[in-house]
């Protein structure tokens, strides 16, 4: 018996850790961008992990990057399933998320909840939202957060397998973080360049994304 056959046998399946299988264990949400899906382990956004997105300024495609996943989380009949009926909460968005444009991209705007806490309440709000179990995703604009606070959030997100996106200023890029995925965004002409600083289960790198593949 070949060693691979042995490992695939019924007694041992799932009991022996194999290097390349680690990446498929995580629950993911497809990003909707083929290039990015190929790069990320598991083929999409890791659920139940912190994802940090560094943006120097707004309007560089940071929302476009999330649109396919957001649409997947919020679309669908409200009666379809419990997961589809959860909220996606936006915490302290810098501008008004424009409902007609969101709808046009397939997002169910009725599933969005906007919360504007004061600066010192942001982390509290974020943790409440993640822990409540009533949100399938969180988009938070978070300026200051230390490692301990992020670790708390990470644990909360793991518990509820919540899609947790933290928009951070570029200055936070050098700070230590428990996030599973840390990416920066740059606009290069018409393409959006995703610079992956840290990715659990893959090497840092750069991915250029074009139009969403649906």
């Amino acid at each position: 018996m070949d060693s691979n056959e042995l490992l695939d046998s019924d007694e041992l399946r799932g009991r022996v850790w194999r290097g390349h299988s680690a990446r498929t264990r995580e629950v993911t949400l497809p990003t909707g961008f083929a290039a990015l899906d190929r790069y990320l382990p598991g083929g999409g956004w890791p659920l139940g992990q912190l994802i940090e997105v560094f943006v120097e300024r707004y309007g560089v495609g940071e929302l476009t990057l999330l649109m396919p996943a957001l649409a997947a989380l919020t679309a669908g009949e409200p009666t379809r399933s419990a997961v589809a009926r959860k909220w996606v909460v936006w915490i302290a968005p810098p501008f008004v998320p424009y409902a007609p444009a969101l709808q046009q991209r397939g997002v169910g705007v009725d599933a969005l909840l906007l919360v504007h806490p004061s600066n010192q309440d942001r982390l509290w709000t974020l943790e409440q939202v993640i822990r409540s179990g009533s949100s399938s995703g969180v988009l938070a604009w978070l300026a200051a957060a230390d490692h301990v606070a992020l670790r708390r959030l990470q644990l909360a997100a793991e518990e509820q397998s919540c899609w947790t996106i933290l928009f951070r200023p570029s200055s936070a890029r050098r700070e230590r973080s428990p996030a599973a995925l840390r990416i920066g965004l740059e606009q290069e002409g018409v393409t959006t360049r995703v610079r992956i600083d840290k990715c659990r289960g893959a090497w840092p790198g750069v991915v250029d994304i074009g139009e969403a593949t649906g």
Partner: protein
Amino acid sequence: MPRPLQFRDLVVREAVSVPGPGWATVLAKPQSWIAVCLPNLAFDVFGMAAGDEPAAVVEPLRGQVFVVAANRHARRCGIVPGVKLNAAFALTASLQVLERSPRRERLCLESLSAWAQSLTSTVCIEPPETVLLEVAGSVRLFGSLAALKHKLGEEVARRRWVSRLCAAPTAMAALWLARGGAEDVESLGSLAGRLGSLPLRVTRWPLEIQTLLLDLGVRTIADCLRLPRDGFARRVGLEYLHDLDRALARRFDPRVGLLPAQLWSARRELYQESSDAAVFMAAVEDMLDGLTAELRRRQAQVRSLRVEFEHVRRPPTRESFDWAEPTHERDRLLRLLRDRIERIDLPAPAMALSVTTGFLQALQARAVDLFDKTPVATLSHVLLERLRGRLGADAIYGIAAVAEHRPELAWSRSAARPRDEIAGAGGPLSPWARHRPLWLLPGPLPLSSSEAHRYYRGAVECREGPERIESGWWDERGAGRDYYTAVSGGGEKLWVYRDRRSRDWFLHGLFG
């Protein structure tokens, strides 16, 4: 041959609408009333029953002051209700005189009624001193009429009031029998006989009516019943005949049960002025105990609540709390209150706290999952109220698309609702939405302003457009604009427009 009908017959028949004796009862189903008569209430409200000095409660009537109630010592001296105050002082000089307080009496009756609502839903106050309960439906639950009476008697005794309890098939009969200190009457058949022996004063008819009847030699209810009905109606008054009929179940006696209070409130004074959240929480917890007990008794729940902090020489500070769904659970109430009160910033130390609820709502029971998997709807309720409690209701909202050409009016804030109340992905999908940005600025910014410069670098170059939006000439927010999709030197995709009137450029959105 029948006697021709005379005018007088007609008038009397009209006036006395109830025919002669011997009719069947008007009650559709048997009723059972308990009257709790508090004959000494006017005195009992002062809580001085155990005093050692003779004391009496007095009330002015037609320019003279009469004793209406007295304690044991005063009665021993011969001071009974009805004695004039001067005469009372003649009997004992050391008499302590209290002025009657109808307000206190009313409050006592109301508090007893509120308690009695745990026995039956129909509780009526019969001023000045009686509470009536319709208990036909409660007898089975409590075992027997005697058990119910025992419970009531215990409660009244706990309040140290003198009481007489009596049960009868009609409210009026129970009331009269209790005032007369008579025994219970179980059946309608024996009602007339048992009521008959009661003196006239139990009716509490006006004094002149009672005097008139006494002058006629009518001393008891039985004497009244013996009089011809038409004559009684004409000479004494129709309403008194109706009273007699009601007592004997010959006439309907609809009574509106006392409605329980719609709000609940409590107040606690602090031992000393304080700004300490722990002190506040202790007082609030204490009050919540009372509230939850009340809610449990009433099978009710609350949706909102207000806490008032009273200061010295300053208007009180008010804090309002709203729950996403009505609740009666102490923990849930307390959690939200604690979140806010622990962070409260008062302008001055508080000397007292009061809690007032919003309208109490009937409890709606909900089925619970066998495996205790909390539904998303409940979780979202809880999240909403926690966020509202700490951040304020304005900080949380949903968004919706609106069918409107002007971009700033094509979306709206909607109240955040828990996830089960959502009607479905709705809203019109405008055909132009393709060219709309994901971020809309709160208001258009002049493109050359320093504020707008924060959002782009370098020169702005129009890529697509123009799209003309000319709308709203009928209101004050009319717009005439040419919109362009533009790219700045730094790579930001902008949504800009040129105002058609002023020819100025504005930044209105970012494509994000």
